């Protein structure tokens, strides 16, 4: 489904990504982790072309993201993305947040868009809040709306960029629960996160990045029980033992 | 359409230069006076003394809702009346500009002082500094740094505004250009030339502001 082939990227003279290759098969859940500044967020933002790459190739569902001729707007409409800071449209209520792209991009009739939105909002447990504005919701609630907004487009895959990093601890689980449910339903997912519990529970593979490189790319079980590189061992010991 | 004749400008250069000097001089006096009176107004508004801050606030808001031209007319008419003898247009224009600009400068300074983070004041007080020392060593230096680009921008606007003394026939650059334009019958050349001169001066000024801004930001 997602093929990342040898990509490199620079910001000025700073090399953010070096020769990164990995893939996500249909129905697979891949978690990307690593210390801050390792390039993991940049990597996931390259997948739907939000960040351009200078070298290498990315294809999603057989379409080359890195090809200049590709209509990125059309491709993005088919890939869901959830951000660290939710990024809901602040001037629209929950319902309109879910309907906007359905109506304007997919050209769905209003009634159909509303029905879809209502169903998804019910699914993330926020039916009572459907007419509220983002600023009136907690962080956890906003992130669940953001997930529902992406799902409203019937995506073929979902990208998550540190979806719980900006949340207060007590709100993390309500968001992870929604993501776990999605994973068990067979959604193709690429998730940048530090939530190792989540990775253990649902990930098929875990990718570890450091200083712009993919250091390890392993089956989940091997990743935790048998880390090879010293850097990963060091990272895991710091993130797991406290 | 008659052909352009720019020799008119060359021949009138000394006359135009006198006008430009007056524009600069007026700008300079208005900045000095406006800053001085503006500081007083800003301090009055932030003084915490009710009556004083009310008077200052009323003055500032009143001046800011009236066109500059009307203020110029007011002082053109009031100053001789107050002094009991006729004075030149220049004196009344200077007073009008000082009174007018002070209202704007005081707002800039008030915003500048308010822009200094509250935590800074608390930190200063917690190290044992009193009110005046906090103001002098902590608040005002930071406030002034933040204000400089805005103050310079306001000076550029002021320079443009001095062209309005045209309405009381004071011979600044604008009035002089207009006199040449009419007497020589060369309206097109003169007004385009005036626009170009103002543009060059003000654009250079705004480039300087941009430099200052990037310096202040670091």
């Amino acid at each position, binding site marked *: 489904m997602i093929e990342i082939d040898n990509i490199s990227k620079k910001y000025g003279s700073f090399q953010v990504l070096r020769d990164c290759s990995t893939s996500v098969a249909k129905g697979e859940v891949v978690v990307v982790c690593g210390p801050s500044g390792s390039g993991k967020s940049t990597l996931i933002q390259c997948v739907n072309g939000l960040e351009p790459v200078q070298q290498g190739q990315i294809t999603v569902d057989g379409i080359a993201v890195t090809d200049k001729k590709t209509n990125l707007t059309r491709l993005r409409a088919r890939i869901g993305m959830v*951000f660290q800071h939710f990024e809901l449209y602040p001037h629209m209520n929950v319902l309109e947040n879910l309907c906007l792209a359905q109506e304007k991009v997919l050209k769905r009739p209003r009634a159909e868009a509303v029905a879809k939105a209502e169903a998804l909002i019910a699914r993330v447990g926020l039916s009572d809040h459907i007419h509220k*504005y983002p600023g009136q919701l907690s962080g956890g609630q906003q992130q669940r709306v953001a997930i529902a907004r992406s799902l409203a487009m019937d995506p073929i895959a979902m990208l998550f960029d540190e979806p719980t990093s900006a949340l207060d601890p007590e709100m993390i689980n309500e968001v992870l629960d929604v993501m776990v449910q999605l994973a068990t339903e067979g959604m193709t997912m690429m998730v940048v996160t530090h939530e190792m519990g989540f990775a253990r529970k649902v990930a098929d593979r875990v990718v570890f990045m450091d200083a712009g490189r993919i250091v390890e790319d392993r089956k989940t079980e091997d990743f935790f029980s048998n880390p090879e590189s010293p850097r990963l061992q060091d990272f895991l010991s710091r993130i797991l033992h406290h | 359409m008659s052909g352009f004749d720019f020799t008119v400008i060359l021949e009138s250069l000394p006359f135009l230069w006198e006008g430009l000097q007056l524009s600069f001089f007026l700008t300079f006096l208005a900045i000095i006076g406006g800053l001085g009176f503006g500081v007083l107004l800003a301090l009055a508004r932030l003084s915490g003394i009710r009556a004083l801050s009310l008077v200052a606030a009323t003055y500032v808001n009143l001046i800011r809702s009236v066109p500059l031209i009307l203020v110029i007319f007011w002082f053109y008419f009031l100053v001789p009346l107050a002094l009991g003898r006729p004075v030149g247009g220049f004196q009344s224009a200077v007073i009008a500009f000082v009174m007018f600009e002070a209202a704007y400068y005081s707002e800039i300074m008030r915003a500048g002082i308010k822009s200094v983070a509250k935590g800074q004041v608390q930190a200063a007080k917690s190290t044992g500094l009193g009110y005046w020392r906090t103001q002098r060593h902590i608040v005002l230096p930071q406030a002034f740094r933040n204000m400089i680009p805005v103050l310079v921008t306001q000076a550029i606007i002021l320079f443009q505004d001095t062209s309005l003394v045209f309405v009381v026939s004071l011979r600044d650059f604008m009035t002089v250009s207009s006199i040449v334009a009419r007497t020589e019958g060369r309206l097109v050349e003169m007004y385009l030339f005036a626009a170009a001169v103002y543009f060059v001066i003000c*654009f250079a000024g705004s480039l300087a502001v941009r430099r200052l801004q990037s310096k202040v930001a670091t």
Partner: protein
Amino acid sequence: MGWLISGLGWTVAVSLCAWVVAFVIGALIGVGRTVNNRPISFLCTAYVELFRNVPLLVQLFVWYFAVPELVPEGLGQWMKRGMPMPEFTTTVIALGLYTASRVAEQVRAGIESIPKGLKSAARANGLSGTQMYRYILLPISFRLIVPPLTSEFLTVFKNSSLALTIGLLELTAQSQQIADYTYNSFEAFTAATVIYIFIALVVTGLMQIIETRTAIPGQSGKAA
């Protein structure tokens, strides 16, 4: 008194018309400065710098005295003889285009103050560039810039007084004429001043209503 009313009428008419011009052109130019297209953003920047760095009075004279001579002869003749209400029209154009450069700066600042993440989200949601501006960036930025636009709107009323220099008998001009003819300078200027303050109060009040009406619920720092 009748003179002042007629002057007030011209002031309001010039200001409102000029504001429409300023708002439409200013919004276009402001957006133009933020788009990812070198020639467009350069042209829009040049517009702003040009109109911002020449005094309004000079611009007014250029439009009134110079432009009719510079355009093709037929049009120039029409501007001088045929155009209805030449002083009024010229003031609206000059004041409108001048204010547009200031509105453009506010619009640009508003758009640039929107976090990058929200733009990424709109893109990731499948919105095209035009859709992103139309449904996300412009609606949010216009709400953000209501207060600075209020003061620009007030400035238009004040700047409309410059029209007296080309012979439009608006409020300030009328008060000055009364002062000249009747020697009741004090009364005439006081009346004009009071009317300008009244305009300022009305406009500020109206804009506050607009600000409250358009405030985004749940956003801090704004009355919902």
